[in-house]
């Protein structure tokens, strides 16, 4: 394939990486936007998810939120923020991405904390632990696998979506795709696509390893997990709330 050879040649040229607004700059921009969006979303969603989950309330609200977020096209939200008074550029992109990162983190934190056996909580209270100790030493470790899954889902989603921002004037690696397409230079476009896809896969892998290291108990890498028989079938796993982007 000729276009693929051209993409390879483009990626092999060090100048394309190091020049201003080259691949390195775009990648840094891409990662920065994504990281800020995910961190802000965590600050918003984790406390709410924890509070709702431990109180076992608001399940309908959480489900409705994740369902509605699935129906809203990311492109629409990116565009709407770009034409709002915020103006386009990285700020609008970051805000739009934050909005999309909240539902997966919130849903998974909610499900994780709700799933903690109430008897364990009671036992911990009986042992004389304070409310904060119960939360930090009993509930959090038990909820952590799902909490990290939520963050991973959101992060991969955000990294993937950040590429779309280029269609409406944002920055990041998506620019290469848009630029290559606009100039009918499919080599550049393919190079951009490979870079965006690679970054998403890298994010997934890094966060999977990270959550593997952080979560206590029997260590299992998420991507090696095949559905085990004791898991209740029939119900799609909470990560299914993540949308491919």
């Amino acid at each position, binding site marked *: 394939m000729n276009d693929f050879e051209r993409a390879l040649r483009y990626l092999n040229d060090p100048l394309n990486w190091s020049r201003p607004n080259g691949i390195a700059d775009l990648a840094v921009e891409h990662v920065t936007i994504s990281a800020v969006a995910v961190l802000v979303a965590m600050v918003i969603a984790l406390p709410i998810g924890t509070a709702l989950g431990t109180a076992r309330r608001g399940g309908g609200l959480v489900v409705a939120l994740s369902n509605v977020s699935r129906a809203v096209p990311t*492109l*629409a939200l990116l*565009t*709407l923020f770009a034409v709002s008074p915020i*103006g386009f550029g990285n700020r609008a992109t970051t805000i739009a991405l934050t909005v999309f990162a909240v539902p997966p983190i919130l849903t998974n934190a909610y499900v994780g904390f709700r799933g903690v056996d109430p008897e364990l909580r009671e036992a911990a209270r009986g042992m004389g632990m304070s409310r904060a100790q119960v939360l930090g030493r009993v509930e959090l470790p038990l909820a952590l696998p799902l909490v990290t899954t939520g963050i991973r889902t959101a992060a991969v989603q955000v990294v993937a979506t950040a590429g779309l921002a280029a269609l409406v004037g944002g920055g990041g690696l998506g620019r290469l*795709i848009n630029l*290559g397409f606009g100039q009918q230079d499919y080599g550049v476009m393919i190079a951009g696509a*490979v870079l965006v896809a690679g970054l998403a896969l890298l994010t997934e892998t890094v966060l999977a390893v990270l959550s593997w290291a952080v979560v206590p108990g029997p260590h299992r890498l998420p991507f090696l997990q095949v559905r085990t028989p004791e898991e209740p*079938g029939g119900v*799609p796993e909470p990560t299914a709330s993540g949308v491919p982007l």
Partner: protein
Amino acid sequence: MTSLGARPLLDAVSGPATGLLAVDEAPNPWFDSSYVTENWDSILAYTGEHVRLTVLAVAIGTAIALPLALLARRSRYLAAPVLGLSTVVYTIPSLALFALLVPFTGLSSNTVLIGLVAYSLVILVRNFLAGLQGVPPDVREAARGMGLSGAQTLWRVELPLALPSFMAGLRIATVSTVALTTVGVLVGHGGLGQLITGGFAANFYRAEIVTGAVGCVLLALLADLALTAVERALTPWTRAVRT
């Protein structure tokens, strides 16, 4: 292309913050009913393309996902690669996938369709597999004991039992496909997404953008409602239990 047309404008405006965007210089309402009535025909055409792409993608996805799920259920050794591969596909951004397909399929709507099939397939296989694995083994054994053949067991016992999970998968796949179709604007076949980028390129015309966005959400809601109705009609027994 629409996205290309916007570029010089962007570079002109996205410089240092001057506080005044081209957006603010003329009245630019968020919604304009006259826009909708005057452009009704083109809105309908885009909606038609959107619906066509979604229905085709989910239908083809279902046709491929069901045999795959049946195959993956047979053994863990088949399930692992199927699920692993689907995770990888799921992780690849749609924009990148569409871009990678362009050299093969060009600017036709097939580019969008193939991408959408891939994503709906991933969601459907997982849910189909979960549904099939949720069938209790003793029920399957009882069916065999009653003399049902493998195909009969599948059709008369397993599929009805797995139906709620199937339908859940179909709903998720349909709703996210409706949203994903908009990314097809890259090759000019994004259905209602064309209104979104079209409005952006037409000097940030908000009414057009909002019409496209709201149309997408409405379409997704309608599809979800329709599938819920189908599910209720297909599974009368779940209702009897619930009430």
